[in-house]
């Protein structure tokens, strides 16, 4: 007996004579196991997901591996550059269907992440938020030179950074703009990030030294920019000494810098003045709360 036309067997014989309740009766002599008592009927339902041989892509060859890592390195560098906009205004919810009908619906997807849409339970400022990268919503066009003759005239003001940022946006002093080359020179795999201690010491110091140098040079130019990494580090350190639960972390931080006397912390230890510090963290609401 089977419900509706679901089973292939139900419809046979005199089947199809439905009663009022929707059940179908099968004449008792029409089923095969009635005629042949030896017949063993396999009444199991067919498997919904039978084993399927999923095709597997072959492993990466050496060349492919190189190509992919070059691509990934390029992407990293690009994300590090001034023209990349990190901000995602589209909160992706993959449980919902992504199909859209018309431009209006597409447009509605974007601009979802704003102050009004933050999750109130997760949006409480925490200490760790200090360390998250500040997101950029618009590309930083004024930091680098452009070959303006190859841009349409209506974009020229934008390229100069004079594009209606309102009075709030700080005008950078116009010095000679330079094209920055990315400092990321190699793509670190997970293993490299975690495993080799020795390498980290060697090149890490150098990197730090380079960072310090960058900060020094910028200081000499008289630029006071809150985004400079060196200052942020100082800030972190100053703050960290007050943070009880992060004491251990900070100890390690100190240990690291104790190996050599040339690094950001050491350099700025005496130099740090309060004004600077305020400026560095002033813009960040989270910082104030934490304090």
């Amino acid at each position: 007996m089977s419900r509706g036309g679901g089973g292939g067997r139900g419809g046979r014989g005199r089947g199809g004579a439905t009663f009022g309740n929707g059940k179908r009766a099968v004449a008792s002599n029409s089923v095969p196991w009635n005629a042949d008592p030896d017949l063993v009927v396999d009444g199991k339902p067919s498997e919904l997901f039978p084993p399927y041989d999923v095709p597997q892509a072959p492993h990466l060859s050496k060349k492919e591996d190189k190509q992919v890592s070059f691509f990934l390195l390029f992407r990293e560098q690009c994300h590090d550059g001034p023209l990349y906009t990190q901000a995602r205004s589209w909160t992706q919810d993959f449980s919902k269907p992504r199909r859209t009908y018309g431009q209006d619906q597409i447009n509605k997807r974007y601009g979802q992440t704003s102050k009004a849409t933050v999750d109130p339970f997760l949006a409480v400022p925490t200490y760790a938020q200090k360390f998250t990268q500040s997101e950029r919503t618009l590309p930083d066009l004024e930091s680098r030179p452009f070959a303006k003759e190859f841009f349409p005239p209506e974009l020229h003001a934008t390229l100069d950074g004079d594009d209606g940022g309102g009075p709030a946006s700080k005008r950078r002093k116009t010095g000679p703009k330079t094209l920055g080359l990315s400092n990321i020179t190699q793509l670190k795999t997970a293993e490299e990030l975690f495993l080799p201690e020795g390498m980290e010491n060697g090149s890490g110091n150098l990197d730090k030294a380079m960072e310090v140098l960058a900060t020094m040079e910028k200081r000499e130019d008289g630029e006071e920019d809150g985004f400079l990494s060196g200052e942020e580090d100082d800030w972190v350190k100053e703050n960290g000494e007050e943070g009880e639960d992060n004491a251990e972390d900070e100890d390690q931080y100190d240990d690291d810098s104790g190996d050599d006397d040339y690094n950001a912390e050491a350099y700025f230890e005496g130099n740090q003045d309060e004004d600077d510090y305020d400026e560095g963290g002033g813009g960040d609401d989270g910082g104030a709360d934490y304090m």
Partner: protein
Amino acid sequence: MLVTQNGAELCALLIDEIYGELPSRIFAVLLNRGRSSLPQLVQYTSMSPRQLRHGLAVLNQHSLLYFDVNSDNGMTVYEPNTDNAYNLARIGKVLEMVDTSLSPSAKDVMQSLLLSGQTRISDLVAAYQSKIDHASNVAKLVKDEGDDWPELNGTNGDVQVVKMPDTSINSAGQLNSVLCRLVEAELVEVIHKKTFLSPQDILRDVEKETLDKYFLAGVKGGKGKIEFQEKVADGLRKVRDESKSLKRKLEQNGTAAKRRKLFSGVGMSNGNGTHEEESGDPGLDPKQVIRINWEKCLVELRNRRLYQFVADMIGENTAYVYAVLLKLLTKRLARCRLDPTIDIKEGEEDIGVGFVTTDEILDNLKTGIDLSLGLGKATKDKISSKAAEVIHEHPPKKKLFIAEAEVDGDASADEEDEEGSGSESGESDAEYEVRGRSSAPVGNGTKVKFADAAAGKEQRLDRPGQLRQHLLLLAESTQHFVRHCGPDEWTVDFVPLMHTLCEAELDSVIEQRSGKPGLRLVRLLRDKGKLDEKSLQNVALMRKAEVQQKMLEMQTAGFVHIQEVPRDNKADVKKSFFLWFCDIEKSATHLVDTSYRTMVRCLQILEVIRQQEKDVLMLTKRTDVKGREKDVMRKEYYDRYSRFRENEKKLFAQVMRLDDFVSLLRDF
């Protein structure tokens, strides 16, 4: 490039992956809506004009846009450059190609160029200069602190080596020479004022100019039309060649090798800020703006692909010979597929890529390559050298009409026989001579020593002969990798060769999808043309049900197509013929589109994984975590992170493999 829906989605995703959401959004809208102006874009995207201007600036900087400024009302319209957007998927390949075929430092420069988009040479030089200064300053500091850093207290030079193992650009002079080499290889092109006009706009401008200049009275008659088209093609070519102005200038200064000798160690000459025509030195004009020339990059990628193919088909050494041949041959070749409006019109003789002589190849072969490997060892009398050395002067003609083709074939065979016999006898004599000589101490000193040392080495001496063998092997292959176009002259007919490769690739796809019988049916159709179902059964010797099932299966997959031919005017469906046929072009475009979709899926999956591993990724990006992940992150997080990295790599590898396929079917 015509864009399908999947292609458009892919382009937007690629831009999103590399340049961020803002440009990607604008690009997607441009793709959907076509040519639009800024106010229109505001309307479509409901973004602020300020956002749009920023996004458009980024897109334009990376050459992802065409724009046209209307001279009357000053309105600018933008158009998406889909080719360049798709090329983003090839960045890894291009960088790898430059890295291996030129040098790591060239790759570094190339990468900087890709990163910054169109760049003025002076800016690039300044950027590198500041980096170099920076590095040397650091090195100095390190030197001063030498006592504290025991592992680094070497000299200045040592530190440089330790610090910058991969950038390897450490002087302005080196940068200049690397740039020169890139320009010579045409991998870098100059931007001129028409670069950002879309092809249609350029055509419009050139046509207008031609009309104003030569055809004031209008174009009249068939003859006038042809003349007009020639003039337009000339104009288009002129516009196109403008991007090579730097290369031309370099060539005026003599050959590359000579110049490199002269100016090695001499820094970038700063004094020539005037005009490029006046300065006679190799320093590139710092005012020029350069970018990557994707078309030439594609030619190089095609060469590598062909090399790979030969390596698979015949063998490593032969493939190496082929690579050298291709490198020499494609030096002047600017693009893989010729532009029908510009190139085809100008007459048949110019289309050919020229030829390379055996001696040229021999000069460019590395001496370390043992040519005797990979060759069969048959005695001279077992080889029909006459058949092997047949010379085909003309490229194979397309088989349009069978009768005509046969006549052609006969005629050319006759000619070849005559020429072949003439040149070949001389050749073989020479070969015998070489063989005979090699054992006797007549050649130069070193060779004789080798010959004395071991009998096996004897074979290495006959490099020209062995090279010839490899080339003949290539020419003999069924794919016709090489055409023996004259005595000791070799060329490659790219169009038919790539067609063959396309077919082979399609065949392998068909075989995977519908098995051997399906492939057999497709091949039958290709051979016989259009076939009725009944005759197909007869030819294929298969049962009706099988044929029907297979054909339907393949039709849904887009490998075979069906045509309805009515028997009479009424076009009664029951009475009309249904002919199966197989159109390679059609199946190729279909497959390309499917590949786009698969690539889109790969990128979407990546996004989903990213969403799943969001907390780990956020953690690794934190400034306090960077550099000391091991201390901060737990084992569990580390595992997740490494798994994510692995998946990411696999997904991108998949995208690149698909791109291999797409480029073979679409671009090569």
